[in-house]
Structures are given as C-alpha cells and as structure tokens.
C-alpha cells in the first residue's frame, strides 16, 4: 500500500516535469490552459493554398473535441459505431496506436459524439465523454485504470448540447463539473478516481466550459463558467468563493475563463456579454469585484485568448480585439467567419465554422490577415479548437484530423 502511494507520487513528479516540456500541448488549451503557445519560428505568412500537409486521418468518427499532444502521442476523442472513444495516435503520422471506448456515444441535433479533449499525464490520460463517462486510461495500451460516470454518481443531468468539458488536473486531483445537487464541481483522486471533495455550496448544472486553475495571491482556485454563473472554488476543499451571474446566460455558457494576475474574464453569447472581475484573497478566501461589464464581447463557443493585454475572440460572428483592463474595443472584423482560435508566435490561428482556416496578426492596431485556406466540409460546423504544437498546426473536423507543417524554413 505504502509502496503504491510512493510509486504514484513518483509518477506525479515525473509527469509534472513532462507536462512542462517544450513542444507538448498535453491538454485543452495547452499546458496552462491559456491557449497561448510559447513556440517561435513559425511561418509569418502562409503560402497560397495552404501550408504543407504532413498527414491527415479520417477515422475519428464524430466529435468536436480538440487534440492533446504529449511526447510522441496525440490523444483525441471520437466515436466508433455507437461508442464514445479515446484515440491514441502516433504523433508522426496520425496512425492509431489504440482506441478505447468510454461508454455510449450520444447523438444531438447539432452533431453527436464527444466534445471534450483528453488530458495527458505521462502514463495516464483522462477523458470525459459527452454522456458523463470519465476514465483514467493507461497510455501504454488504453486499458482502464479507473472509470466513473459523473452524471450518475453526482446526480447531474446532461446538458442540452451534451457535456463538453475537458477534465483539469490540479496536482493529484482531477477536477470535473458534474453539475449535481451540492456537487457542482468535484475533485477526484487522479490515481484512484475516489472523491476528494465536492463543492457542496454549488449546485449549478454544468455549462460547456472547462475549468482552469488560478493562483489568487496564494489561494489556489478552480475557476469555471457553469450553466448559471462564473464561479471560483477553493482548490483544496471546493469551498465556493464567488458566484457571478451577469456574464452567464441560461442557454449555453461555453468559453473557458481567462485568468491573468489578479483578474478573471468571463464571456458568453445569447445577448449576454463579458465581465472582468478583480480577485482579492482575504483570510484564505477570495472576493470578486466587477471591474467592468460589457456587451462588446459575446463569445459563443470559440473562446478568447489574452495576448499582451488584449483579448482576441469572436463576439458572436465578429472577430473582436478588446483591451483586457478596460473592455475598450480596438477593432472588429468578419475574418474567417464565426469561429475559434489559438495563439502562437505573434499570430492568431483562426478556424471559421464554415471550414476556413486563417492566420492573422495578433495586434491591437488592426486586423491583418496573413493567409487562409479552406478545409473540407464534414457536414457539421468546424468547432474543434485548432492546436499549434511542435511547429505543426492540427485541425480537427469531425472524423478528420490534419497536421500541417507551419515551421519557418
């Protein structure tokens, strides 16, 4: 028993080192969930047509999730027949190494299949299906270390457009939002799956967002956007720290919050808007105070990135650059059409829901496009967030995952 603990601790140390390694993107929105890559040496302008394609696969079934990349592996969720599946791919050529079913796949009028992105952690990978099936899989062969259905066990009900969360690792805890009664957010022991705490003061149903972890002046805090509010709970015990409703709507809250220094930014669409909150740690708790509320950023599902003091994201269908501290609008442009984005090496990598991929400079001065190309239509809006990792651009669209070489030669 003791030796097992020690072994886990050891693995834990190893993993934290692994996650920080250059060239990895081991989870949703990258190592620190900011969706900002630290890579450099990427193409400043795309060639006509598209950057060279390294490989492309088409066996992922359905789904809206993005990719997690660690070492020589890529993890991505999809479907096989009627199952919701985690795929482990060879990073060099996209070939499947293993595939493991988490449970049944769900259909939805806006497209079926999983929406989440796996979280890679060395010898383990964690993934949550669209139906609440959460599992820890061994990366060597995809075998199940443990599995729980978080909707059943914490009495959450599935969301209209199905669970879309990517589980968050915080130390030894795996954080997910079942949205159950007195179990809005829960922490599970990542090694065993056993419950560590439940946020018993929070009973909001789950939104479509994923949690981030924030160090608020020494108070480690889990931050997310539920079906009702932007919230923060204490990372060590799940105590509810704030519950801010103004930036949430009652239809769909999707965007992962943005944390920077002592502030958190929430945004949602459906005529809602965005808000910046100032966070202040007091006696081990955190107080949140509204800096501004604005209707100028109503982000639906594409997320926002913060680069050098400016937020970039689609306000409904319009790409918008907004000053983080003030909410002031710098510019608006239709760009590639309503979509999603990521950031690397001075540029925004854009993916419009109508399959247009674009590159634009991340500058508050003006919208400056540096290239675009069309990917093939897969019958559903292309909502999976793009990933830049190791000089490659990864674009997932339902069954297809394509890898492009964007390294400057």
């Amino acid at each position, binding site marked *: 028993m003791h030796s097992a603990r020690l072994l886990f601790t050891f693995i834990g140390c190893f993993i934290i080192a692994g996650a920080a390694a250059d060239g990895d993107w081991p989870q949703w929105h990258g190592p620190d969930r900011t969706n900002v890559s630290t890579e450099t040496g990427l193409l400043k302008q795309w060639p006509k047509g598209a950057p060279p394609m390294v490989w492309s696969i088409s066996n992922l079934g359905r789904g809206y999730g993005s990719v997690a990349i660690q070492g020589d592996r890529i993890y991505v969720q999809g479907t096989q027949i009627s199952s919701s599946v985690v795929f482990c791919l060879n990073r060099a050529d996209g070939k499947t190494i293993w595939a493991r079913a988490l449970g049944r796949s769900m259909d939805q009028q806006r497209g079926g299949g999983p929406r989440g992105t796996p979280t890679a952690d060395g010898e383990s990978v964690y993934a949550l299906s669209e139906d609440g099936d959460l599992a820890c899989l061994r990366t060597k062969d995809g075998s199940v270390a443990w599995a729980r259905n978080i909707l059943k066990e914490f009495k959450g009900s599935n969301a209209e457009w199905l669970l879309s969360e990517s589980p968050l690792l915080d130390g030894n805890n795996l954080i997910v939002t079942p949205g159950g009664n007195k179990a809005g957010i829960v922490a599970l022991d990542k090694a065993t799956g056993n419950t560590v705490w439940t946020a018993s003061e929070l009973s909001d149903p789950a939104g479509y967002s994923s949690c981030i972890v924030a160090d608020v002046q020494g108070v480690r805090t889990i931050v997310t956007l539920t079906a009702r509010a932007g919230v923060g709970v204490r990372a060590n015990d799940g105590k509810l720290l704030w519950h801010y409703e103004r930036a949430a709507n009652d239809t769909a809250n999707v965007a992962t919050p943005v944390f920077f220094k002592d502030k958190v930014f929430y945004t949602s669409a459906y005529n809602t808007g965005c808000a910046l909150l100032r966070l202040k740690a007091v006696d081990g708790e955190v107080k949140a105070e509204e800096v501004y509320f604005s209707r100028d950023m109503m982000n639906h599902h594409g997320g926002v990135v913060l680069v050098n003091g400016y937020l970039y994201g689609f306000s*409904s*269908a319009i790409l918008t650059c907004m000053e983080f501290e003030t909410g002031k609008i710098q510019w608006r442009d239709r760009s590639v059409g309503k979509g999603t984005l990521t950031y690397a090496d001075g540029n925004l990598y854009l993916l419009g829901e109508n399959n247009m991929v674009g590159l634009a400079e991340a500058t508050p001065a003006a919208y400056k496009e540096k290239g675009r190309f069309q990917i093939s239509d897969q019958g559903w809006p292309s909502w999976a967030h793009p990933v830049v990792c190791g000089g490659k651009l990864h674009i997932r669209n339902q069954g297809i995952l394509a890898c492009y070489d964007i390294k400057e030669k």
Partner: protein
Amino acid sequence: MNPTPQHSCKLKSHPAGLFLPLLLALPLVSQDWPMWGGTPQRNMVSPMKNLPTSWDIKTKQNIKWKADLGSTSYGNPVVADGKVFVGTNNDNPKNPEITGDRGILMCFRESDGRFLWQAVSDKLESGKENDWPGQGVCSSPAVDGKRLYYVTNRGELVCLDTEGFLDGKNNGPFQDEPHKGSTDADVIWKLDMMKELAVFQHNMANSSPAVWGELLFLETSNGRDDSHEKIPSPRAPSFIAANKNTGKVVWQDNSPGDRILHGQWSSPGLGEAGGLLQVFFPGGDGWLYGFNARTGEKLWSFDLNPKNAVWPKTRNDGIATPVFYDGRIFLATGQDPENGEGVGHLYCIDPTKRGDITETGRIWHNSKIRRTLSTAALADGLIYISDFSGFLHCLDAKSGASYWTFDMLAAVWGSPLAADGKVYLGDEDGDVVVLLAGKELKKIAEMNMGSSVYSTPVPANGVLYIMNRSELYAIANTAAGPPN
C-alpha cells in the same frame, strides 16, 4: 371583404367631419400597425412621414416614453386602438402576485406608455420540448377593432378584449379567467391547439396571426420532439384558418406532415392573386404553400431549397413571413438561430401558377443572401432584406439584381422597416441603423438601444417603436410631436 379593416376604425375616430374630406384626399392608409407586418400582406413598409432619424436612450432625446418589459421579449409590438401590445416574459412582474416563469402579453397606453393590463400564461409542464423556459410570448398579436388575437406559449390561439377588464365587463363566452383584476386580460375565447388539434409545437408556439374579414390565419408550430428524431403528431395541422368570432377552425392543412425538418415558426401572409384571395404558408418541410384563403383548397406549392440541399447544412425551412407586393411573393429561407449561419435563398414567386410551381412560379432567385429570419420590406420597386449573418441587402424587386449590401457586423433577427424614405434595422449588438432608402447606399445614423434588438421597428401614428430585450421605446421627433 375589407382588406384593411383598420382604415375605417381610424377614420371613425376622427370626430370632426371637417377634416374628413382632407383625409379622404390623402391615400387611405392606416396610421396604426395592428399586426405583424402592419397588414396581411406583411410588407414591412409604412407611408408615415416625419419618423425620427436620431434619438438617444441615455439623454432621452426624442424618447417619448419607455416601458419596462420582462427580461426577454420576442412578441413584436403592434399598435392599435390607442394601445401598444407586446409579448414578453415575467422576469419583471407587473403584478407582484403573479411571479415565476410565464408567458406575458402586455398592453400599454399608446399616448404615454402607461401599463394597462396583461395576459398571463403558465408554462407547459412538458417544458422546453414544447415551451422553452424564459422565452415568454413570442407571437406578435393581430388587433381587429376591439379584439386581439395571439398565440400563447401553451400553443393556444386566444382572442382577447383590447380593453381587458378596464371596462368592468367580462366579455365573451370565456368566463374562467384565473385573474380578473383591473390589470388582467379579458379572454373572449381560446382554441387550445395542443388539446383540440393534437398539435405538438417544437420548443415554442409563436405564429403571428393574420386577420382578413371573418378569418384568422396562423401556423401551428407543429414539429419534432425533443430528440429531433420523431414527429409525434404528423397528422396535426400545420396551417389553420379559424373564425375570428368563435375560434372554430374553418379549415386546416397538414401538408408538411411527416416531412417537417425541425419546427414551424413562420407566420402566414395574404394577397389577392389570380382572382383569388390567397394565403401563403411557409412549411417546416421547406416548401411554401398557397391556398384559397376562404376554402383551404391547396392551389400550389413551391420548393424553397435546391433539390440537392441537405438538412441541416444546406436545406432550410421558413422562419420569415412571406410578403405580397405587386402581385408577387417575396420570401427568404433560414433556420432556428441556434443552428447558426449558413447559405440562404431569396425568391420572388408568381402565385398565379398552379401545382408544383417550383419551376413555373420562380420569377427570380438570389442565393447571395445568408440564412435569415427576416421578412422583406418592399418600397418603390426595391426590396430590403436582412440576413442572420448581419447583411442588409437592397435588390431590384422586378429582376432580383443587387444594388447594395450593408454590413451590420452583428447578427440580425428582426426585419428592416422601410418608411419615410428610410430603412431602419436593429441587430444583436443593440444597434439600430437608419439608411437612406434607394439604390445608393447611404447611412444616416446609428443608435444603440442598450441591449439586443431582436425585434423589428414598428411605425404608428408618427411614432417609431423599438423593443430591445427588456424595454419598449416610443420614439418621436419632439419638435413635431406625434399627431393625435
């Protein structure tokens, strides 16, 4: 049959016979806006003059009055009988005794915006499948004399007394109003389409009725179940005509039947074509149907999608209302806004043809437009129509040739209004733009309304009504003052 019964009402309201010859010398046009689109032809135009082109909700410049609504308001304003009627929810209860989620139809006094009465509908127990939470009343009512017709969130076609209980009388055969206070609605009759016609509306019943003579026309919203996999009630009517005095169904039709793609959230339009009074219903199967309005005889049908279109990517249904202008029908296609942006199609259709008129009745077709919820405005041979992606298009009504496109840079749910040589349009950012009507694009002004304008600007008696999510503004040039 009087095509616009409100004309006579308005004339009668002028006491001095002295002015009558002068009024008769002017074109006989109503100054009220008694139903969605103003008239059964549904054309979003008005000959009204001196409408405001600038206002400010902060400084109250040109703001005649403002009324607070619920938190979400989709029932576009209508103005008649000295009152303004809107559909909203109950997030800001006018009656502190009646709280919680309900569908609300509110009535305000036209002159000063004073709240007069409200009709309250409880939510259906079946929940979002038939009656999406928080959406309130989404139907825009039709007023005819002292009677108002609208569709509740429960799928009921209801006739109300425009006076409510303010006249101290419980009018009509219906006597079981749960609330009978002075600020409550007086129900004349009700037709429960779910119970009596087996209608299964998808998410919301929202049709805006049209009145013509003794008949009321509306779409039932019959559609798919929550899973979107089944149509629980394919034999239930999609389209009905009812007697306006009794609420009895005169004729019904279920042509879309088991081919409904999603829901049916459109409203009918009417017009005299080919020697017949016709009613036009956009079906949830993506076809437009023309009927003899009096008998219900199906005259023709028109496929609004290319034959190779595939639901939901490229095949659309009709959300917008068909407009009848110059003997032709103008209608563009779209989808539930939740389904996002996509390709759309705008058609000009000849309703004198018979049978499947997809080829024979197509005068022109434009596929530059995106998916839309917007109903067209046609004036002086030009068509103004917006799309969900946020583009306002101006085309030639005869040829379909494009003159200009204006980018709102925000989603548009409402429709343009063409009046007084200008075009008004609101968007999701809450901006209302005023453009010069005509073949040249010219923006006159842009005002922000504080929250999304999902509604369509409404002109009545010299006043422009603009509703955002939670407020109704009456806007008028203060220098001139509204005529009264």
